């Protein structure tokens, strides 16, 4: 009983916190670093595969073909960081592009048609938001549903007829800014802006916070629902922009525009080190990943490799990249 009186002092030492990690560690053990390394490797391998690959002009032109997808991937990154996911933007691109094309083909003045397309995109984002935020359904399944629905609507609207775009509006990718195709410029600018938003503003900060722990975020007075709504609307509109850019690049629109590209978008985010469970990821990561993907697929195409090999490589890349990020994060975790 005497022992009871003098209770041993709670062992403060055992509860003291770990020392901070050294800076080099913080820099090196980051997914973006991994992406950068892969990118450099990719360039080397690609130029080994084909002597025709290493040509800035060509690479830029090829990137212009994926710029729209990459643009959406940037916003998708933010959505995933916030703890949700959206698989419907590719279908959204198709539908809003079809609506735009159909409008301008039936005589609506281009600016108005563009506006229609953008509104359609916004609406589609709104539908996703409704199911996810109001009905509290898992975004993954919801957006699989809307992915089928939006594509289906595009199919109804356009059949499998391709709708011509007015000559004047054709060819964004032919417009060069200092020798760089406009879509690429748009992508780079968007990346810079979004990187600032995500990294430097309170909005971005709160995206990370709701992605890390939504309950805690609510308790800290963060309006997670509002932020998620904004994100879904944002990705809706950006998808529409991407769709219309694609329309202009192709000069015509069919319902199968960007068919199956949702995988590529997710892939870019994952490869960039975005954590599928939310709370982690960066715009620069996705930026690098986009270039990595283009380098990989272009390298294979110019070497006339079977497209099947590209699919396989993409699939493997996706799996490997999440394994890697999960590993890295489980390391940095506590």
């Amino acid at each position: 009983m005497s022992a009871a009186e003098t209770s041993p002092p709670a062992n403060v030492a055992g509860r003291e916190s770990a020392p901070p990690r050294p800076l080099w560690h913080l820099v090196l053990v980051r997914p973006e670093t991994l992406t950068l390394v892969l990118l450099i490797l990719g360039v080397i391998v690609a130029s080994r595969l084909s002597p025709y690959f290493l040509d800035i002009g060509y690479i830029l032109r090829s990137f212009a073909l994926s710029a729209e997808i990459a643009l959406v991937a940037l916003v998708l990154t933010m959505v995933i960081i916030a703890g949700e996911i959206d698989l419907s933007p590719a279908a959204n691109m198709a539908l809003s592009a079809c609506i735009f094309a159909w409008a301008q083909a039936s005589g609506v003045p281009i600016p108005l048609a563009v506006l229609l397309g953008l509104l359609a995109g916004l609406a589609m984002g709104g539908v996703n938001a409704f199911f996810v935020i109001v009905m509290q359904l898992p975004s993954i399944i919801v957006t699989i549903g809307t992915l089928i629905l939006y594509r289906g609507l595009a199919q109804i609207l356009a059949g499998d007829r391709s709708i011509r775009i007015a000559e004047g509006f054709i060819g964004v990718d032919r417009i060069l800014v200092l020798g760089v195709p406009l879509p690429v410029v748009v992508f780079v600018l968007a990346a810079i802006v979004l990187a600032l938003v995500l990294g430097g503003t309170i909005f971005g900060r709160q995206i990370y916070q709701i992605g890390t722990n939504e309950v805690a975020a609510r308790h800290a007075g963060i309006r997670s629902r509002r932020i998620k709504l904004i994100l879904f609307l944002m990705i809706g509109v950006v998808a529409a922009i991407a769709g219309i850019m694609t329309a202009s690049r192709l000069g015509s629109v069919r319902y199968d525009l960007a068919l199956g590209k949702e995988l590529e978008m997710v892939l870019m985010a994952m490869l960039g080190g975005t954590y599928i469970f939310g709370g982690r990821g960066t715009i620069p990561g996705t930026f690098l990943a986009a270039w990595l993907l283009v380098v990989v697929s272009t390298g294979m195409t110019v070497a006339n490799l079977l497209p099947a090999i590209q699919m396989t490589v993409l699939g493997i890349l996706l799996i490997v990249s999440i394994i890697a990020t999960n590993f890295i994060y489980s390391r940095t975790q506590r």
Partner: protein
Amino acid sequence: MTGPAALSQTQVPLISARGISKQFAGVEVLRDVDLDLRVGEIHALLGENGAGKSTFAKILAGVHRPTTGTIALNGEQVEVANPVVAQRLGITLIHQEPISFPDLSVAENLVLGRSEDGWFSPVPWAKMTRDARALMDLLGVDIDVTQPMRGLSIADQQMVEIARALASDSRLIIMDEPTAPLTPREVETLFGIARRLRSEGRTIVFISHRLEEVRALCDRVTIFRDGNKVGTHTIDELTDADIIRLMIGRPLKEYLHKPRTEIGAVALEVENLTLPGRFEAISFSVRRGEIVGLGGLVGAGRTDVARAIFGVAPALSGTIRINGKQATIREPDDAIALGLAFVPEDRAQAGIFRSLSVEQNITAAVPARIAPRGFIRRSVEKALSSEAIRSLRVRLASARQPIGELSGGNQQKAILARWLLTDPTVLILDEPTRGIDIGVKAEFYDRIGELAASGRAILLISSELPELLALSDRILVMSEGRLTAEFPRAEASQEKIMKAAVPRSATLGEAA
């Protein structure tokens, strides 16, 4: 020593645990515990919240592996590697929070994991249901065993857990606060069964915060404090005062309440707050500079009241007034705008952003201050957080390290710091010292005192009576979602509070 203890002294103990220690991520929650459980005794584990009772129980039942230490069953060493092994050894644990498979039928929940049969062996539905019904009758509860578990009340879920333990005729049954959600009648039945099991020569470990229950049921008690075992005694050796002293570890007077003089105007006032199924007609008020304690048993509805006031899960009816003005609070940030702050009971789930920096965690509630024009001003953020860190003496290596790397106590301080930055008039603390070591606790009590002294109104929810008694100017008590008593500091006592906290018409005299 006398009584049944003395008699069974001679025979080999059913369980003898030696030098059991347990760490969770470097936090030591059990330290070198030795404990013998005799055949055919009902053995109580007592201790404050966080003392380590459940952890010890879970170690016996193979849910956790001890960091160090050995367990012997009937004298021979055993490895309780996992719950199934425990099951096989005849050890069953009734968890503090009932675990259930909501989509499976009650009957299935009863048998799941008990059978050793292979994967593809058939499920004997008929027998299963029959046995389940029998058990329910035995427990005198009326539950349709073919219905899915989902939708059962916590109490009924608890009953199913108990039934499960009975069905697996174990030598050792550990009941971790089984009575917390039960009605007095159910408690009686449970006690009846417990006694019968004892007479069959089984051993029962009974964990509870209710001394009356312990006295009514148990032969011996072991008391835990801050992860240490402070002693094992036959129950009639000890007075309640002894037990409390052992649990708390220092004479109560050390905690004695420091009266506050400068109590000001009413800051928070709630009237007839009601959320059906959770709480009814809650009315009270808190003045500036006053600490109002809110006591009760786990599950009484206190957290729900707090969450309602703060707008996390708003009440359906009733009014809330802040500084005399009627307030509509739909979301926490409404509450924050009105000068409320809320330190939730479940830190990991509702408090911290584990993987984000301490800095970010501290400034989470004051976006406007660190980012006046939307863009974050690092200098401001740095200044604010480091100032808060200093004032609350948060122990950390760097403000940029993930908060997950901090100890529980320091995490809790960081959360408190977060709320100090909002400069709240009303501060709601729900179990602020749960799972925090004794040293830090003392600090917390000083901080809370200072906060009140600085003219803030504080609503303190705590299941630790000494804590309530030490800090509160007034003490409210909740039971089954209703306010059942209010004591000015002077009149409050552990006994009175307990009486008010235990569900109505519960007079454990009968149970005994």
